[in-house]
């Protein structure tokens, strides 16, 4: 049923991309004599985030040893690229272990059509005639484009995914296959580059043989994806350290449903997910039952979000500018805490919601003292909401008053600067380390450290201030009682 003619827009784009493909063929750059013996690319589109697993079997057929290999991305891909991880497989069969490899972007002015190259440094340089297997995982955000761009409440959400049937690589690939996994078998259309096969929810391109470097053959897959396209446009996390034993977290979210925009009427009779309970009616003063119609919504709107919080979380709140949002559930066990939150209204395409989640954590779980006497905070980077893209993440680590020399150790590049925060009873202000990163995905939930110097005597500053101010108040009052400030003589008879 899904094999229908592809839409007009897709038709228009394909020749254009084919043109660029021929253009690409003219550039054949191979500075090193490397070829990829077999390549496999598995694209997972079951969630709103596109995850790509790339397996390359590389051979050095030249003489000089090769310390690193290159992976290429098209300009649009590199723009949406959130994270790229590479690893190599060591050992055979049962003793297989994955060893992570370091990845860094390289400037590639000679790459055709602005392709962006990343170099993967191998553990040991590849000797002449040797082969190795490199596995790469990369995550692309905002690469599923809703089409049609506006849908009504009960329509399913269809999206485009654009990629190439052949793997973009600076090397010749001997044999390659691309698999695209969609959430369901409902695929509206897909570009065919023979041999192409589709079974169930998987579409296969290939195997293709002996493709030249930088070969590109654009494909479009148009399929149904009713996952909630929850995108946090901006997330500001404030992590406040108190050496009195508490770590206070405040996450300010600006959430958007980035799927196909909602169009036309809204109706509860369609949207209501049925529920049913007895209420004591305060107005009518008698118990009665609320009965909603049971009609499951088809559309990609979402009612709930799940946030994974650290274990031993306490004093959780969930609110926005106008007060508490009284619909959330917290499940705590010793391993993790799950906070299920419900925005004030179900989010349809294009709708927004802003809210704040705050909680406290025991300090001893996250603050440690390093061997050189400095203290460091060990906390997870990234967004606690599961399967959510964060466009703009700001992490503010608010150190206690009197801390000095903060330095951050983050496993990926971030922007950082210092600022001052003023809270209760602060005189000099709290040093705040601000970390900023764009395009954050769940794969970024990785611990980072902030090291700083702190003298415990500063812990006493604020209590002493309070005590002394109360003391001064009493002293002033005693003085006031004993000093007669009146101008005239005190009269003996007082009214």
């Amino acid at each position: 049923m899904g094999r229908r003619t592809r839409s007009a827009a897709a038709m228009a784009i394909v020749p254009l991309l084919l043109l660029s493909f021929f253009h690409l063929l003219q550039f054949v750059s191979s500075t090193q004599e490397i070829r990829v013996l077999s390549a496999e690319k598995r694209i997972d589109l079951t969630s709103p985030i596109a995850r790509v697993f790339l397996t390359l079997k590389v051979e050095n057929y030249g003489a000089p040893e090769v310390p690193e290999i290159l992976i290429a991305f098209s300009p649009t891909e590199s723009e949406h690229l959130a994270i790229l991880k590479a690893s190599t497989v060591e050992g055979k069969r049962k003793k297989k272990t994955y060893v992570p490899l370091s990845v860094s972007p390289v400037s590639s002015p000679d790459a055709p059509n602005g392709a962006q190259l990343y170099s993967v440094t191998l553990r040991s340089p590849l000797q002449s005639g040797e082969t190795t297997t490199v596995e790469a995982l990369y995550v692309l955000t905002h690469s599923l484009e809703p089409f049609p761009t506006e849908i009504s409440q009960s329509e399913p959400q269809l999206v485009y995914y654009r990629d190439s049937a052949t793997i973009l690589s600076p090397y010749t690939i001997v044999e390659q296959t691309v698999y695209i996994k969609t959430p369901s078998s409902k695929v509206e259309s897909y570009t065919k580059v023979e041999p192409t096969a589709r079974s169930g929810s998987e579409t296969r391109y290939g195997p293709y043989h002996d493709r030249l470097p930088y070969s590109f053959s654009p494909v479009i897959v148009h399929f149904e994806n009713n996952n909630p396209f929850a995108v946090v446009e901006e997330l500001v996390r404030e992590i406040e350290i108190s050496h009195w034993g508490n770590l206070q977290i405040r996450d300010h979210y600006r959430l958007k449903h980035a799927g196909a925009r909602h169009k036309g009427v809204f109706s509860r009779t369609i949207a209501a997910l049925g529920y049913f309970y007895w209420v004591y009616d305060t107005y009518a003063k008698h118990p009665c039952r609320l009965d909603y119609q049971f009609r499951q919504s088809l559309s990609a709107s979402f009612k709930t979000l799940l946030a994974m919080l650290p274990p031993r979380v306490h004093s959780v709140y969930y609110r926005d500018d106008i007060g508490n949002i009284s619909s959330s559930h917290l499940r705590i066990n010793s391993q993790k805490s799950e906070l299920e939150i419900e925005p004030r209204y179900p989010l349809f395409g294009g709708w927004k919601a802003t809210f704040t989640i705050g909680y406290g954590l025991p300090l001893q779980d996250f603050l440690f003292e390093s061997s050189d006497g400095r203290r460091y905070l060990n906390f997870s980077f990234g967004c606690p909401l599961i399967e959510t893209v964060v466009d703009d993440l700001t992490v503010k680590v608010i150190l206690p008053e009197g801390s000095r020399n903060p330095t951050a150790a983050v496993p990926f590049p971030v922007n950082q600067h210092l600022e001052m925060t003023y809270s209760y009873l602060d005189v000099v202000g709290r040093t705040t380390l601000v970390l900023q990163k764009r395009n954050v995905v769940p794969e970024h939930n990785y611990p980072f450290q902030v090291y700083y110097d702190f003298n415990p005597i500063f812990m006493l500053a604020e209590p002493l201030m309070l005590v002394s101010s109360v003391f001064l108040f009493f002293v002033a009052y005693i003085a006031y009682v004993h000093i007669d400030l009146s101008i005239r003589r005190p009269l003996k008879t007082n009214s």
Partner: protein
Amino acid sequence: MGAKAAENGAKSSSSAPSPPPLKAFFRLKTKQQELLIRVASLALIYVLAFAVRLFSVLRYESMIHEFDPYFNYRTTLFLTRNGFYEFWNWFDSESWYPLGRIIGGTLYPGLMVTAALIYRLLRFLTFAVHIREVCVLTAPFFASNTTIVAYFFGKEIWDSGAGLVAAALIAICPGYISRSVAGSYDNEGVAIFALLFTFYLFVKAVNTGSLAWALASAFGYFYMVSAWGGYVFIINLIPLYVLVLLVTGRYSMRLYVAYNCMYILGMLLAMQIRFVGFQHVQSGEHMAAMGVFFLLQVFYFLDWVKYMLNDKQLFQSFLRITLTFAISVGALALGIGTASGYISPWTGRFYSLLDPTYAKDHIPIIASVSEHQPTAWSSFMFDFHILLFLFPAGLYFCFKRLSDATIFIVMYGLTSMYFAGVMVRLILVAAPAVCLISAIAISATVKNLTSLIRTKGKAPLAVSGKGSSSLKASAKASADQSLPFQHNCAIALLVGAFYLLSRYAIHCTWVTSEAYSSPSIVLAARGAHGGRVIFDDYREAYYWLRQNTPADAKVMSWWDYGYQITAMGNRTVIVDNNTWNNTHIATVGRAMSSYEPEAYEIMQSLDVDYVLVVFGGLTGYSSDDINKFLWMVRIGGGVFPVIKEPDYLVNGEYRVDKGAAPKMLNCLMYKLAYYRFGEMTTEYGKPTGYDRARGVEIGNKDIKLEYLEEAFTTSNWIIRIYKVKPPKNRW
């Protein structure tokens, strides 16, 4: 203030010559003990008054309640963000579209300035509080202060015991709590404090004749004027009081100093409030004060002449001439002023206070507000409980010991009681007076009873010659010796009094927690398993408006929700709770009660983008727009005669079921409230489209909308928002 007074007492006692040895250090004299107990109980009352008002925060959350407080909150937010100058000159284009509203000139800024100052002070002391917390806790804080004022007031009019009882009574009086729970961020919260404070200072000024106290009362009056329109009560009650003192021959120099200073300075200060302006000299409601002011001058003049003349015959004729002259000049001035329009006549609100039926006939917009209804007996009982019975007893004691101060409290009590009977919300004004007068009754009764019990116990001792005081008491006791079982009766009565007082305390706590601590924008109900079900639909809808509509969208709703939409939804509204323009409200009422095409024309002319209606048919929430609809018809019909109330009624009966009037079934409000409701099963065993708020099956289940489309409905259908479609192409 309490601490200061206590300290004064401590000073006098510490000046006693004997240096206490270490052993006797903790043994206090009776006077010191009494002082300690008094200060301690006042401190406890202060805390209690604050704590009892926190039920709403504990039950719900730290949030602003009701309707008007949202406006106050929004303006306070503006004040703290943009400063006083901007606030004073603020033209708000987000309300009363397309007219706008000059906020600085049309509000009483006292509350906002107070909250902003507290906020600044806390920020200065490096307390990083949010302005919302300050706003939520302003009313309880001022209620606590009111208890202290009540103590001093009671002390001034009776004795410190009565003051203490008054403080305790007012701390938990439901009539006062109803307007001062945490979150009820309204003018009344600070105004009752200002009102009682002004009265206290004025009575103090009258008692002492001190210019300083009179000056203080002028400033108290200024604060009251800046905080609440109820200042008119002060500016009429005080002249009335002065007049009564004059008539009863209690004129004194003290009164002259107190009133003149208070009136002149208070008037000049009050003119600084833009909203009040020159009303003190131009409005009919303030003329009584001016008349009494001139009368006092005449009195003073006459007194002087009497002193100079020393001739009774001559003075009598002089008095006659002067009085006639003064009264005729006064009447002439008033007549000319009124005729030339310089002195404005009384406003409708003032009339409706004097005549409870006035609003019903002439101003539907005032009559439509539930808190402007005449008070039912039950709400008196609910809000005052035993004070209702103690009040007459207290009046009796006041009359028994008549003084300038007791005359004042009697007059305050009687007038405010009358106003409380006229309007429900004015129970608030009566609450302090009722508490004070009841406190006098309690204090005097308990004092009498305990003295009876004591004399009985001490009677044998008195014979042996203990002291002069007990001698006097025993003399009194021997005078009452004729009564049998006197001692036992006294004990029984005392126990009865304490039982009543404890019932009062229980009642107050219960009323506060059950009735007066609901924020009214979050509704709570009891769920299936005894759990609480929260209906947070209002905020759901307002937040939806805020996030998902264009920033310049105009929302049309009935005026009740105007302040909330601007404060929480941050969108422009057509009309809001500041009902200054009746025609504009009537236009909205007309749109709601017209057929869809006519309503569409009106909405187009007002640039309306969204229409918001409140609907309780699914949840059984009874204060929704369908139940308010007749007021829309009445107010709309008052300006636009095309809207006729009988068109919406069937034989004078208001119905929404099949038997409803055809115009009712097809007017915009009906369509918007019941759109697609006909498909819903609301209650088990009932047909679809069963309206649970009114208990009927709706009459029009097949509603089609032509010019509007449903944009959002909250999870319990309490708020429904419709988008006005753009006009159709003409070709």
